[in-house]
């Protein structure tokens, strides 16, 4: 294939420009790989923390009803569904917690800690005490560390819970948790039976949390439960639609920047090729006289764009990989409640990102080559030959 031969000779004959255009492409590819790795890291942290910190599916009472009655049967039924890892029923109510003169509004969750731990690993977030301390229906409470701070309470202190239509009840603090989310300021757990008693509701629940083996199958199962049982089943995707939309939007924005960055490097390649075409006018004319078709002339210059792009992509991938590793190793002092308790930039190095950045770069580079290549292929051989 003589086209490849001519293309490589052209590139070799312009070492400096070739080098610069390869550097331009590799920088673009490198930067984009770093961006993509950060985006992946950011996305996976956001999604992981979302799926770790909440039930994958939440089943709520039927429309117009406040409670799910006879929930034990439903619980067993859902547990038997394919893909379900754990189920935890809860009774949730609003309450005011008081300690001395400090009063805070909270969402009180009555749960069975063992079941709850299987759906959302609450143990993991305990700062002090045990989450399972509320296993028995005593007056014990586990609350968020910010809530504790606002009430100015600590382990062993007694807070008073006031719920509408019931006598104020004292609860002893047996655990404090920290999730790094706003829940630390508004959430408290007590034993489910104790809360049902407090509200005088009887053996009912206000909802049920489900953990799936595969978090991404939640949407489908939620729809199934919805259809089959008539209860309102909401997946974590639906609950966090805003976050997911935000992620999608920011991904879209980032892609816009990718296009701009790649276009800049593409112009670098186009520039080198235009220079080569201008310099090789006579040569192009002679190649045509020797019987080279216009298609082959076009191919020569597209190959040049592809070769320059390919080297840029290879160097860029190495660069991006190295820089991503380096960035991931830098520890940044951030307060733990910010950014989900991260202390370094979230970098996830994924092969997928390297492949898509490379393909993206190659496509733009070849597009950049089209203009000079077309220009060369459209030359009038007579004019080209006699221009020298």
């Amino acid at each position, binding site marked *: 294939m*003589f086209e490849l031969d001519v293309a490589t000779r052209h590139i070799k*004959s312009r070492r400096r420009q070739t080098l610069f255009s390869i550097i331009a492409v590799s920088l673009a590819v490198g930067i984009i790989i770093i961006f993509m790795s950060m985006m992946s890291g950011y996305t996976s942290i956001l999604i992981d923390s979302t799926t770790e910190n909440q039930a994958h599916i939440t089943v709520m009472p039927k429309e117009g009803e406040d409670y799910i009655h006879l929930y034990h049967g439903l619980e067993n039924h859902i547990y038997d569904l394919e893909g379900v890892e754990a189920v935890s029923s809860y009774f949730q109510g609003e309450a005011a917690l008081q300690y001395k003169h400090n009063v805070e509004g909270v969402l009180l969750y009555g749960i069975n800690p063992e079941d709850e731990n299987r759906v959302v690993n609450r143990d993991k977030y305990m700062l002090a005490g045990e989450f399972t301390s509320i296993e028995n229906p005593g007056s014990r409470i586990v609350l968020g560390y910010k809530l504790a701070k606002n009430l100015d309470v600590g382990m062993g202190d007694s807070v008073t819970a006031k719920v509408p239509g019931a006598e104020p009840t004292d609860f002893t603090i047996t655990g404090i948790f920290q999730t790094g989310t706003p829940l630390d300021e508004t959430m408290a757990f007590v034993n489910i039976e104790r809360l049902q008693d407090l509200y005088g509701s009887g053996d009912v629940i206000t909802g049920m949390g489900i953990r799936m083996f595969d978090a991404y199958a939640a949407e489908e199962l939620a729809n199934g439960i919805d259809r089959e049982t008539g209860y309102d089943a909401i997946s974590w995707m639906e609950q966090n639609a805003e976050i997911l939309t935000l992620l999608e939007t920011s991904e879209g924005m980032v892609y816009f920047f990718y296009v701009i960055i790649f276009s800049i490097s593409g112009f670098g390649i186009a520039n080198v090729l235009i220079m080569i075409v201008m310099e090789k006018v006579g040569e192009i004319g002679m*190649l045509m*006289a020797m019987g080279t078709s216009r298609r082959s002339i076009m191919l020569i210059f597209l190959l040049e764009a592809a070769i320059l792009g390919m080297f840029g992509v290879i160097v860029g991938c190495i660069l991006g990989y190295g820089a991503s590793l380096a960035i991931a190793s830098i520890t940044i002092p951030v307060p733990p409640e910010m950014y989900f308790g991260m202390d370094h930039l979230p970098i996830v190095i994924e092969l997928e990102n390297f492949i898509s950045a490379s393909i993206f770069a190659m496509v733009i580079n070849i597009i950049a080559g089209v203009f000079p290549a077309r220009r060369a292929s459209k030359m009038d051989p007579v004019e080209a030959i006699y221009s020298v």
Partner: protein
Amino acid sequence: MSDKYIIQVKNLTKIFGDGVEIKALDGVDLDIERGEFLAIIGPSGSGKSTLLNQIGILDTPTSGTVLLNGVDVTKMSDKERSRTRNKELGFIFQYHHLLPDFNALENVMMPLLISGIRSSQARDIARKVLDEVGLGDRMEHRPNQLSGGQNQRVAIARALVNKPSIVIGDEPTGNLDSKASENIYELLRQLNREHNQTFILVTHDERMAAKTDRIIRLVDGRVAENSINSN
């Protein structure tokens, strides 16, 4: 069509220019025999190169026909024109137009590679032709390492390597001193005799033209003289 004529130019007209029209060729009729060694002469702007480019299928006429082996090349597609140039025509220009990034051997191989011949085979053929033009010892040299005359010899080898039936030369010795010109001319003449290929040379050099089989003199885009040389 007659088998005797390899090229038949009929009423060929080429008009250049937008706005002001320049008639570069004005109804040229010309028959060229197989194996002829022919010179086209004439003053600057008489249409010599234009006629050559029409015969070489590098350009298209405004009207008229060019038959190459009886086939009207003016009606060919772009692809057919490229193929015909590769198979049937060899070009030598005033400037050698060698590819500067390739050595002499690789330059000569190029038309063979374009036609799809394997590299190893092309190398053997190109070596023989370079030997024939007397450059067997300069095969690995690049154009910038060769003299003007040597480069022109490489260009001749390149024009001949595909064994074209017609070799076209536009002032092939125009850039060379008289000694080198003489040598190149002798080489072309010798190759013409050995291979019975048709040579059409445009030249300013009347002395050289006098040594050809026939002289076509163009004036203002018309054939003003068509004379057989007696030598």
